[in-house]
């Protein structure tokens, strides 16, 4: 593909769809590091202008990474509803944007259109959308998934409790989990990042979280976020897991660097449906995040927004219960500051929802990034208005194991209070039973982790 445009008196030439896609991105350090970013604002606008006029069919005719050479591309291609695609293939990206934002098109219309789009098309339209466009569009889409409980209903903001401990100490994990529960966090999932990736340790953590759930009759689901193969070994041994987890990349080579393949995920899928402890039809938990392909040198000069969308194309095949981008975890060489993290969080949330995925966001940052807790609070309010399915909470926003900051349990309670959002229905009843919630507000017992020490 070759395109030329005159803008503000300058001539801009682009030699491939890959180049147009990369240069049409809002600025981010990862694209600069990869050497594929626009030179300046005018070139960025030239790329966006050209992108707006491209028909959707161009994205199938000029694949960025062909299905023959990459299995993620194959999954995306196979996952596309060709009947829907045929009806819209002559639309330009601009027309797609305007269809999405038209007030007469609601959740089901967008989800239907989404089935006829490849991940690259969804990434393309995100590049033509402002932050408020991304919020407006995503807020229309309702994606409900079912494990032990249902997550994703309009008016609900769920939260993952992340009771990590620097040495996977079970008592310490419990203590942190009690704190989460006492603020009403944990309705999306009780999900632990383990330090030690051994079968026995995963087994122990799954048993312990399940025991807490049973002891206090908590309507939620458990998960230990180790490599998928070590979870499989623990589940084979009889560990009680409601969900199975894996981090995803947007290229086959990226996934190889994670030590996974599509066939391995299929195997894990079969196992969790056969031996998992949940009832519902969605049993996967995935995490993603812009920049992981570049960090594994598996990006093929494709920009990080498009690669992120491709993760969602892969995830869609497995109908996950939860999927979140860990948006600010990767560091300033991919997303430099709060402006870039905010943009990426909104893009990821929108692109995931357009794929029909139950999007959550880990609103987070590292200490070498130009961002602070105020920036996370800002992004969390934007995402709450955009209808994010869930966010992640850690004690006082500080994850003492992963050494990064996310949202605090206080922040989750605050978002629910300010935006009049509720926890997952069954979980809300459970909170009321324990006095954590009274008349829709934090109750007397809220914030007291000792609540769970002498009760069964």
């Amino acid at each position, binding site marked *: 593909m070759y395109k030329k445009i005159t803008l503000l008196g300058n001539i801009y030439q682009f030699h491939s769809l890959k180049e147009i896609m990369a240069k049409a991105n809002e600025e981010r350090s990862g694209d600069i590091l990869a050497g594929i970013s626009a030179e300046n604002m005018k070139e960025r606008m030239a790329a966006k202008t050209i992108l707006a006029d491209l028909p959707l069919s161009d994205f199938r005719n000029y694949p960025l990474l062909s299905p023959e050479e990459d299995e993620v591309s194959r999954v995306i291609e196979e996952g596309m509803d060709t009947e829907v695609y045929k009806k819209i293939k002559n639309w330009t990206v601009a027309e797609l944007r305007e269809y999405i934002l038209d007030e007469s098109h609601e959740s089901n219309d967008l989800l239907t259109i989404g089935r006829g789009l490849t991940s690259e098309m969804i990434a393309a339209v995100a590049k033509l959308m402002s932050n408020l466009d991304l919020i407006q569009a995503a807020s229309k889409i309702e994606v409900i998934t079912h494990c032990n409980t249902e997550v994703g209903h309009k008016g609900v903001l769920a939260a993952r409790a992340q009771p990590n401990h620097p040495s996977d100490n079970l008592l310490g994990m419990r203590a942190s989990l009690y704190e989460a529960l006492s603020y009403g966090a944990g309705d999306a999932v009780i999900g632990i990042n383990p330090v030690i990736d051994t079968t026995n340790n995963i087994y122990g953590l799954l048993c312990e979280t399940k025991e807490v759930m049973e002891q206090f009759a908590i309507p939620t689901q458990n998960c230990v976020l180790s490599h998928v193969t070590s979870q499989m070994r623990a589940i084979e041994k009889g560990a009680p897991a409601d969900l199975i987890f894996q981090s995803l990349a947007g290229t086959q080579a990226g996934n190889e660097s994670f030590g996974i393949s599509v066939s391995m995920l299929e195997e894990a899928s079969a196992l969790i449906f056969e031996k998992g402890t949940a009832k519902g039809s969605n049993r996967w938990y995935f995490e993603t995040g812009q920049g992981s392909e570049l960090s594994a040198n598996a990006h093929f000069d494709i920009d990080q927004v498009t690669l992120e969308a491709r993760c969602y194309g892969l995830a869609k095949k497995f109908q996950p219960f939860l999927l979140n981008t860990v948006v600010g975890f990767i560091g300033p060489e991919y997303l430099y500051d709060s402006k870039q993290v905010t943009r990426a969080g909104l893009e990821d949330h929108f692109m995931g929802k357009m794929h029909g995925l139950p999007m959550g966001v880990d609103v987070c940052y590292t200490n070498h990034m130009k961002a602070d807790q105020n920036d996370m609070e800002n992004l969390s309010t934007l995402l709450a208005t955009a209808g994010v399915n869930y966010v992640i909470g850690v004690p006082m926003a500080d994850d003492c194991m992963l050494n990064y900051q996310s949202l605090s349990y206080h922040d989750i309670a605050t978002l629910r209070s300010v935006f009049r959002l509720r926890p997952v229905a069954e979980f809300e009843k459970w909170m009321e039973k324990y006095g954590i919630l009274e008349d829709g507000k*934090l109750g007397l017992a809220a914030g007291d982790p000792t609540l769970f020490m002498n009760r069964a």
Partner: protein
Amino acid sequence: MNKDSLLALKKSTPARIGVGRTGTRPLTKDFLLLRIDHAAAVDTVYGEVSAKLLDQFNLFTVDTCFETKERYLTRPDLGRIFAEDAQALILEKCVKRPVVQIVISDGLSSNAIEENLRDVYPTLLDSLESYNLTTGTPFFVRGGRVACMDVIGELLEPEAFILLIGERPGLVCAHSLSAYMCYRPRVGTKESDRMVISNIHQRGTTPIEAAAHMGTMIHKMLEQKTSGVSLVI
């Protein structure tokens, strides 16, 4: 809230639990504590190692191609390479083909060097000496990344390499040091050939303990003429 029960919970984890609330928000002192710890972490990323400390150990300074802190953070590739004049300086000042080359770098935490070098460095020299291992000319690299050892390895051709470098700061500790070690690092060395002792600070792996361990590891590398996954320890 039961105070004894709460104390038992708090003792079991470094997580900031049992902090209480006012409405949906944290209490002022806990909110300020979080911001104070973050301030320490940010300042160490942007901080500088003092000339006084470098002089104390006779370390001359070489810059990588990072130029500014902003570029250091966004372009890790520039922290792995040296301009021609910097390379010339290394060649001019340093003994060639040493058995062990020691390099110190600020990395992502200048405080890691400030807080730990006085303890870790003399003990490391003692530990190497106890194995009869000699060292080359040590120096300080400003704006270094781990793989800067490969370029230095090309220039000086040491048998073994020790890079003491500041880690990405966390809130619990903003001055944690890592020691990366490698047998004959050269341009193109695989990451899996490097070995690391991380979390070196007074409340983690203590500097003295870490230094003794480094000596043993270097000794084994030289004995087995390898490092990384294939080294038997």
